[in-house]
């Protein structure tokens, strides 16, 4: 499969502090990439750079056969205010805004069908006439993912889409995202739940100020980073010193 995105030696930071340096990775068409790392390691900054919302300090991002209007996103801390007057249908439909060409972007009947379809994919077709302000947190998150699905022609980027949702709903979301991915959509997902990320993504990008990892999920599980992130580091260090060497594998 061809690479949709190739990132070479990317460095960036926020508020004048460097978050990560020399991060390199590729995103293959149809793959699922999970971006993990500790709080403040710059996962969201990295996503901002990918989407062109933020200028990296150095490095290169090459997109092949991928336009910005092909990407559907759900960003952390950028959710619309909860009391916003809009129906679920209006919110989902707005995902199509950047897929419309020309200055006046009117939605066709086909677009409305796309939006309805995205809502059913997320299991909330019955909510389309409800108002955004009346929904629960989980329902609102589904609407925003449906909007991202509407926008995503080739790539879906989800930054911590499950933060603050209860575990039962989280596993349901993973199923939905797996299904969308298996239908051919490339997915990049930022997650703080490393174990779940490894279970659902093909490749892992661990972002860290002191060196990053990029590779198959299976290989990541053998690293000290994985052990540290899943909170079993002490155990692993005492039991399996060979894992220490895995650090050499990082890029």
């Amino acid at each position, binding site marked *: 499969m061809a690479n949709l995105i190739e990132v070479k030696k990317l460095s960036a930071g926020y508020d004048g502090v460097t978050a990560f340096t020399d991060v390199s990775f590729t995103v293959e068409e149809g793959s699922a990439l999970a971006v993990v790392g500790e709080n403040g390691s710059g996962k969201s900054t990295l996503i901002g750079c990918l989407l*062109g919302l933020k200028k990296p300090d150095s490095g290169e991002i090459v997109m092949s056969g991928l336009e910005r*209007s092909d990407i559907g996103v759900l960003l952390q801390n950028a959710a619309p205010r909860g009391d916003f007057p809009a129906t679920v249908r*209006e919110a989902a439909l*707005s995902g199509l*805004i950047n*897929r*419309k060409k020309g200055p006046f972007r009117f939605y066709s009947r086909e677009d409305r069908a796309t939006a309805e379809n995205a809502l059913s994919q997320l299991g909330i077709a019955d909510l389309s006439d409800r108002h955004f302000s*009346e929904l629960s947190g989980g329902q609102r998150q589904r609407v925003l993912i449906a909007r991202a699905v509407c926008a995503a022609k080739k790539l879906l980027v989800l930054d911590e889409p499950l933060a603050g949702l209860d575990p039962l709903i989280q596993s349901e979301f993973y199923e939905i995202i797996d299904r969308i991915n298996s239908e051919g959509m490339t997915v990049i997902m930022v997650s703080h739940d490393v174990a779940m990320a490894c279970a659902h993504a093909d490749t892992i990008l661990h972002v860290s100020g002191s060196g990053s990892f990029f590779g198959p999920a299976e290989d990541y599980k053998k690293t000290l980073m994985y052990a540290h992130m899943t909170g079993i580091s002490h155990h692993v260090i005492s039991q399996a010193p060979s894992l220490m060497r895995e650090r050499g594998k990082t890029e």
Partner: protein
Amino acid sequence: MLSMFSYPFMQRALIVGLMVSVCAALLGVTLVLKRFSMIGDGLSHVGFGALSVGAAAGLAPMYIAAPAVLISAVLLLRLSRLEERGRVSGDAATAVLSSTALAIGVIAASLGKLNVDVNSYMFGSVLAVSASDAVICVVICSAVLILYLLFYNTIFAVTFDETFAAAGGMKTGLVSTAMAAVTALTVVVGMRLMGTLLISALIVFPAISAMKICRSWRGTVICSVSLAAAGFIAGLISAFAFSLPTGPAVVAADAVIYGVCSAADRIRR
């Protein structure tokens, strides 16, 4: 009661007021939701300052006011957007600009020994709308209405979630700047009738009243426009009937409408 509209100045006031109210109500929904309500207020003060300076300098006041308000609108919007990123205090900047513009206006008025009553600049006058003003107003407001309808989906997208729209490649900065410019034009064409200090009520009141009783975007937009028209007509009629100044009468009517909408919202919950 309809006989009041046999006066040409009342006909002009009705047309200008309705068109300005409708435009301000449309723009107001976005401005209020993006927390830019104070921009309208800042613009109105700048409008007053510029009108007074223009009149004192013996120039056509509108030719000074229009560019001044337009430039301020773009500047204030920039500041508010920087504030979102936590760099400057946009509301403080708006407050400073408002009071400075007001002070300059009053100083200019007292130095220039204006023939025009400063009161009429501040609180508006039905008699201040000339036939040519009315024509300009109809042209500008029609343009605003048409633009709003053409860019309806874009305006929703930018209001609902600007970051999302920008991530997909939309030039959201351009859209916001255009909205600020259009708001400035609406303020300029409406301020002689409504008064420079009261015009911002036309932007904020209908939008917040509509949001009390509507929960969808389209509903809110339609409701905001309808309430604005109702508020203006009620204000104009009571101004004529009870010899009240028009601007304050319209704002009072808008306030009553807001009270009713709030009450309706309370009862429904």
